[in-house]
């Protein structure tokens, strides 16, 4: 994805699309943007630049033109996660990681930031991004804790694995054209600990979030009725992919296990030859040679297993989590569509209501109140008309929302597939290369030994002939 790097937009223009997307905005009318923004006040609390707001489909069309190649030379933000440290408070013990950011992006005040973040903060960021962009694919975070329990949290390997995964997580977001523009992301990277805490407290209150959750649940229960074919196709793919990647994850972990057990036995094997050499005269040197070869092969095996654990296992595991993320994204898209469909149905019902003859009950009620039946009917008509207008407005908005969600997902889907192919290809390639390297090294070890034996040609032919 090539983006223009330094097209700066001054802070006062924060109600337009973020600067680094603007390169794609070739024929966009700025006024349209402003219009869209001023209509959309659902979550705004006066904050002009709130990237958690969905933008109009029109502007998203351009954003979704992600190009094939994502070169790192157009990267304008570099993030590292390192330096885990343990913090002990009265209540708890936790680990923080240093997050170092170097950037030339304009929305950042400085070009370098160094902050410390704990896992919870990453979780928060992920949540915010998913809320704001419910149908974009956010790279998964490493899991909360290992099944074995609390003690594992402070194990060196676990911390290192987690650190690497967190590093990848942030970099994925930085690479994402939309997610990297998120204000939450910016705050995460730059704010000091207390600033972050304050910032986290903002945003929609608990009750409104509850309301949203209830609606979401209701919609998911209702289900979507007219899912477009392409999303069904994606869903089927995701199901299959999830199975396959899960299997690969298991197979790879099994291989690691078997290799480790092989290594254990090998470690006993070599010394036995050395032991034997102690009883021999003529054979002693040769036996020691064999023992030496086995020991060197042991080291190579150890390295190979390490490589597998460091390179292939984490990537497969990541994509197992990705598959779950994809399923969630598809569900959310479905819910958005379901909500839209529900409102449509409500509108249809209301229309039927309005067009139907006044019901007797309404007439009776009206007469009880001493109202003129004509007037009552008229009032009723007006009321229903008003409600219908309201509904139509809401439906318009929801329709926009559905279209936006679909486009976002489609765009990101292509992007995700490319990432997935790239990541898995490179992980398997690396594994195959390492295996070749492993066998080449072992080959050299044994060939050297053979050379040192200086066998006679006749004996060699004997060997070739024996079955």
């Amino acid at each position: 994805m090539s983006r223009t790097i330094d097209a700066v937009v001054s802070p006062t223009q924060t109600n337009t699309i973020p600067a680094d997307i603007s390169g794609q905005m070739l024929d966009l009318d700025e006024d349209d943007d402003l219009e869209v923004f001023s209509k959309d006040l659902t979550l705004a609390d006066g904050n002009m630049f709130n990237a958690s707001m969905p933008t109009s489909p029109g502007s998203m069309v351009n954003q979704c033109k992600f190009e094939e190649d994502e070169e790192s030379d157009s990267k304008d933000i570099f993030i590292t996660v390192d330096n885990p440290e343990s913090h002990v408070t009265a209540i708890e013990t936790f680990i923080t990681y240093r997050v170092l950011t170097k950037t030339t992006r304009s929305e950042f005040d400085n070009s370098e930031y160094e902050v410390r973040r704990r896992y919870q903060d990453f979780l928060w960021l992920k949540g915010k991004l998913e809320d704001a962009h419910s149908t974009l694919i956010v790279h998964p975070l490493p899991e909360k804790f290992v099944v074995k329990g609390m003690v594992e949290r402070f194990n060196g390997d676990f911390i290192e694995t987690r650190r690497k995964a967190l590093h990848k997580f942030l970099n994925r977001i930085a690479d994402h054209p939309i997610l990297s523009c998120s204000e939450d992301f910016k705050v995460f990277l730059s704010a000091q600990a207390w600033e972050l805490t304050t910032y986290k407290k903002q945003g929609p209150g608990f009750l409104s979030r509850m309301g949203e959750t209830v609606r979401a649940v209701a919609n998911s229960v209702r289900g979507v009725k007219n899912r477009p074919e392409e999303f069904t196709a994606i869903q089927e793919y995701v199901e299959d992919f999830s199975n396959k990647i899960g299997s690969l994850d298991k197979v790879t972990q099994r291989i690691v296990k078997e290799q480790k057990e092989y290594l254990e036995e090998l470690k006993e094997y070599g010394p036995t030859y050395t032991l034997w050499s102690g009883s021999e005269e003529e054979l002693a040197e040769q036996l020691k040679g064999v023992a030496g070869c086995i020991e060197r092969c042991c080291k190579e095996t150890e390295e190979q297993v390490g490589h597998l654990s460091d390179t292939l296992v984490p990537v497969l595991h990541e994509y197992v989590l990705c598959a779950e993320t994809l399923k969630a994204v598809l569900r959310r898209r479905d819910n958005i569509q379901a909500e839209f469909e529900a409102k449509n149905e409500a509108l249809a019902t209301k229309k039927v209501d309005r067009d139907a003859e006044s019901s007797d009950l309404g007439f009776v009620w009206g007469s009880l109140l001493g109202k003129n039946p004509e007037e009552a009917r008229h009032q009723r008509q007006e009321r229903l008309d008003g409600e219908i207008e309201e509904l139509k407005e809401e439906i318009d908005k929801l329709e926009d929302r559905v279209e936006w969600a679909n486009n976002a997902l489609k765009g990101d889907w292509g992007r995700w597939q490319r990432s997935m192919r790239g990541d898995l290809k490179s992980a398997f390639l690396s594994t195959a290369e390492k295996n070749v390297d492993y066998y080449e090294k072992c080959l050299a070890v044994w060939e050297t030994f053979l050379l040192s034996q200086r066998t006679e040609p006749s004996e060699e032919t004997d060997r070739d002939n024996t079955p």
Partner: protein
Amino acid sequence: MMADSGPKEVAVIGNTELTSAELDNNIKNTMVEIEKGTSLLRKLEISVAEAEKRTGKNTVNMQEIYTVYLIETRPVDALTEGITPDSLWRRYSEFELLRNYLLVTYPFVVVAPLPEKRAEIVWHKLSADNMDPDFVERRRVGLENFLHRVASHPVLCNDNIFNIFLTEQDKDWKEMVYETGFQAKADSRLKAVNAAFRVKNPDGRFTELKHYSDELQTVLSQLLRVRARVADRLYGVYKVHGNYGRVFSEWSAIEKEMGDGLQSAGHHMDAYAASVDDILEEEEHYADQLKEYLFYTDALRAVCRKHELTQFELEMVALDLACKKQQKEELVTGTVRTFSLKGMTSKLFGQETAEQREAKLQVLEQQLKEGEEAVKEKNTESDEFVKTAWVDIERFKDQKDRDLKEALISYAVMQISMCKKGIQVWTNAKECFNKM
């Protein structure tokens, strides 16, 4: 390397001083000159060609299934004329009988071991069954090797019983063996243990050899066990990769761009998983070579025991002689140096008469003469044994060093072959991944 079998390798084992002309003259001659110890193997091609199952009644009149092995023999020169070999069937128990006979009859020889009766040190549970074709096959090879070892031994190859075992079906070979009375000659285990315990001056080399055999047995057992475990684990690693093959194949079905690469990578993973079977089969040969020498340690210890027994008997006879000499001296001088019942009784009941003493002296003189003869005999026997045994032990040592050296080299070759296969598979897989 197992003992030679093919005609072109005939000249390697044993003495090489016969010219080809003399070789031609000795076609039918199986009893060759003893001084040079030329081996039978140069005259006769021996092979254990097949194995078959038979049913029959055993000693307690119950039906049993057993395996018989076909022994084929053919004079070396006749090969080019396409003469069919002589053949006969023998079962494992007959091999055992032959070996026991040889052990007793030639106690100074380190007699080659037989292959396992029952599969013991196995890496794969499947081959623990005696009826398993792989086990039977490996036993067949082991029996052939045993015959080659015996036939190439300068002394053993001349043995009549052995030759009949190889060539003549009609005679009741078993009867013949029993008729040699070898079983009577066999030393009882108890005697041997007793001797080992009480011998005072065994030849230091034999004591060393005994220690060596014990060490070798321990280390080879351990080596074979660990090797079997390593093989087991290696098997596991390779076979799990087969799962990659299956999953890649299934996954390729849902991918458009990666499909081809994945599919072909999967094939290579299958090939990788399958390759371990051949690798481990080859390693079994190596393990068998080690096993032969593990079992050889029993033969080594047997020779050492025989020496201890002979030496002990010599010591006993010498002691007896010394004792008699002392008795004579006491009788002659009338002094009693050591405590003895005779001394006591003579003190208590008075000394004997002159005639009695004379009679006793005569008996003692006779005994002394016999004793000295016995000592001389035993001495010769012991010296003879030590000499011939040590010649054979040196022969064995050379054979062992040669064979094991080659076994280790072949092991290295196997490892190289395995690495090369691995390089090929993973290079291919890498190509496929590149296409993803």
